[in-house]
């Protein structure tokens, strides 16, 4: 995670605004290699694609880049949703919204998130993503059509969506046309391991949770 200049100033300035109890920053990815550009195009952290410096109201925040008043976090800690690795921030955001707290984002408070580092980390991140997806399906009775799509159809959909996201974000992340096949291969490989993680969580939920660290 690399903060940009004035990141702390921006985050804290937002928090000084009356009525602001929690503010997130923008989490971006660098566009300096095919690998980075691919992840910038299809992974979670796509803030830089919007190219906005707005101070805005959001439904959620990135847990890797936010500031909040301590009282708020003591009252509303991140929920413990073991055996999941991630997603606590989504449920905390939901809880805060239900309690009437507005979540702000200052897009000028930028940090850069690295993509998975090396093959091992690449596989671990994807396996955990698949594991969490399956756990979320079991633990939370999602009502949306997307969450009702069964395994492994959902994973095929994800792979197709990743390719689509790469195509539509190609210019924003400066991916050359000739680089597209490599980008597609990276994204589809990642989604393959996500699928594997989901499958593993179906047959043995403790296998990933007990053996992997993100």
């Amino acid at each position, binding site marked *: *995670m*690399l*903060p940009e*200049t*004035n*990141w*702390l*100033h*921006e*985050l*804290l*300035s*937002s*928090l*000084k605004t009356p009525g602001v109890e929690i503010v997130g920053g923008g989490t971006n990815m660098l566009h300096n290699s095919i690998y980075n550009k691919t992840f910038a195009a299809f992974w979670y952290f796509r803030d830089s694609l919007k190219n906005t410096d707005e101070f805005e109201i959001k439904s959620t925040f990135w*847990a*890797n*880049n*936010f*500031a*909040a*008043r*301590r009282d708020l*976090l*003591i009252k509303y*800690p*991140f*929920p*413990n949703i*073991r055996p999941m*690795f*991630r997603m*606590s*921030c989504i449920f905390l955001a939901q809880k805060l919204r239900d309690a009437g707290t507005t979540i702000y984002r*200052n897009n*000028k408070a930028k*940090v850069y998130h*690295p993509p*998975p*580092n*090396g093959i*091992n*980390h690449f596989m*671990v991140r994807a396996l955990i993503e698949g594991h969490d997806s399956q756990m979320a399906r079991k633990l939370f009775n999602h009502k949306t059509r997307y969450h009702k799509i069964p395994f492994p159809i959902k994973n095929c959909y994800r792979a197709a969506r990743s390719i689509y996201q790469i195509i539509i974000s190609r210019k924003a992340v400066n991916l050359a046309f000739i680089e597209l096949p490599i980008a597609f291969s990276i994204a589809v490989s990642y989604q393959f391991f996500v699928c594997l993680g989901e499958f593993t969580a179906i047959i043995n939920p403790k296998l990933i949770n007990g053996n992997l*660290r*993100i």
Partner: protein
Amino acid sequence: MEPTNNWTESISLIIEWENVLLSQTHNSRKMLYRVIDEILSMNFILQPEVMILFDPEDIQKDSLISFIQNAHPEYEKINLKVISVSGLKYFEMKNYGAAVAVWRYPRFFRL
């Protein structure tokens, strides 16, 4: 946001040293360097508290401290606290950090 001359607010920065083993050491060093630079560039009346939470099963405290010392030449100007927490996961570390933070605005940052 317009820059201000002095910051009267007290803040705590919480850094979870959770996936550092999988992240590039070079990136982690650059991150620490920039965080320290950001703090030093702002005129805080009250010195911010920077808490680095780690699991002793992942990394030894001495090597983490040595890593921090090498990350920025002016690290001594920062109120750094290296805190050992066993068995806590990412979000649990955040909750722990918020609970023990001294200052008013905990801010979270993950490696």
